[in-house]
């Protein structure tokens, strides 16, 4: 059990999605959702209501 928990602890990362607006260039960082993939059309831009696209998906080590 201690081996498994050290293994699970080692694998804890948070994954983020960055959406970028093609009109105003605003970048929005949010948690990764199932179905996200790079260059997928995202939601509406919160600033100019333009089209956004997912430009980055990456992981960052979770702060424990």
């Amino acid at each position, binding site marked *: 059990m201690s*081996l*498994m928990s050290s*293994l699970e602890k*080692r*694998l804890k*990362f948070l*994954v983020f999605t960055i959406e970028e607006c093609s009109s105003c260039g605003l970048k929005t960082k949010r948690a*990764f959702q*199932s*179905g*996200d*993939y*790079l*260059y*997928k059309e995202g939601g509406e831009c919160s600033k100019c209501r333009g089209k956004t*696209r997912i*430009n*980055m*998906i*990456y*992981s*960052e080590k979770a702060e424990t």
Partner: protein
Amino acid sequence: MALFEPLQGLDQTWTLLLWWVPFIFLIFYGQRIQMWVSLSDVSRSLNKLKLMKEKSRKEAIDFVATFSKSQENLTEKIDQFLEYFTLLPVDLDPAGIVKKIEHIINVRDERVRAEIKRLVSSATDTQASNIENILEVATALNSIYKVVRHYYLLSKKTNSYFWVVQLQMVLPTVLEEAHALMGAIDAFKQSQPIGDGVGAMVVGKMMADKEKKTVAKDTVMSESECKGRVLYLIKAEGPGGNVGQPGNALTRLIEEMGIKIDAIIMIDAALKLEGEKTGEISEGVGAIIGGIGVDRFKIEEVASKHNIPLYAIAVKQSIIDAISVMKKEIAETMDKVTGIINRIIEEKTKEGNKVVVIGVGNTVGISQ
């Protein structure tokens, strides 16, 4: 002195007990003790590998079960799948061996896809690719565990210290690879981009909003323009976990379509040395592509036949970074790598030239 006479005898006894007895004992049994210590160390690592193997097997079964309509014999079928092997062609006569290797690999890929279709007939192509990748990870972990266990048991059976020591020496590297494979499972389950996909990520962005056409199995191409040069952008087709056939794509472009290419630029992940930082970028020459060597052979062959310079851009990362979810440091190299591509195009080619840019890597979570 009379006062110390009884103590002199005592001194000799202590010398005998503390020095000579252990010394003679270690001469005869020292290696056995070392062997016992080494075997314990190997046994601990073997337990870790066993846990990883079982966890990956369970993850694979659970993941496939979410897509499979019939649960009957699913575990048995997956266990059978995990034991598949591929025999590479004999290399006694190496002439023409690349074609044979390609044939065996194609047969294996078709067999794997057919098996997955049988298990999960309702899965989309993307889902089927992800299932394939997860099963490959589970198969690899199963093989690693079995091989290490084989040498461990062989060492115990033969009482050979040299077998144990050799196993002990390679285990840190083996464990690191196993940890990396475990990290890959989450990425494939969630369809998240992995570090190895950095090349595909860069070229995928260049391809966005352009018309794509299939030029080889699981491989797409787009045309673009940069500083008066025509660009042919090639990458594996995402967002499923494919590596494509860039070798066949390039051969088709040059030999079948008859396009005269003036330069080839390839982008891929490369293993970093200890001390190097993740995300460091290096430039070089040659066909930067991993795998068994079939694609690399084809790219080198067509480039040398037509005298086309090959430029390589490597994004450095560890083996764990390469097959786990893409790290921020790797994702942020996008703009820098694009800048290097533009600089190579400007410096090494002239206006009106045609340049092929190949983004190498697994395209899980990376569309175009």
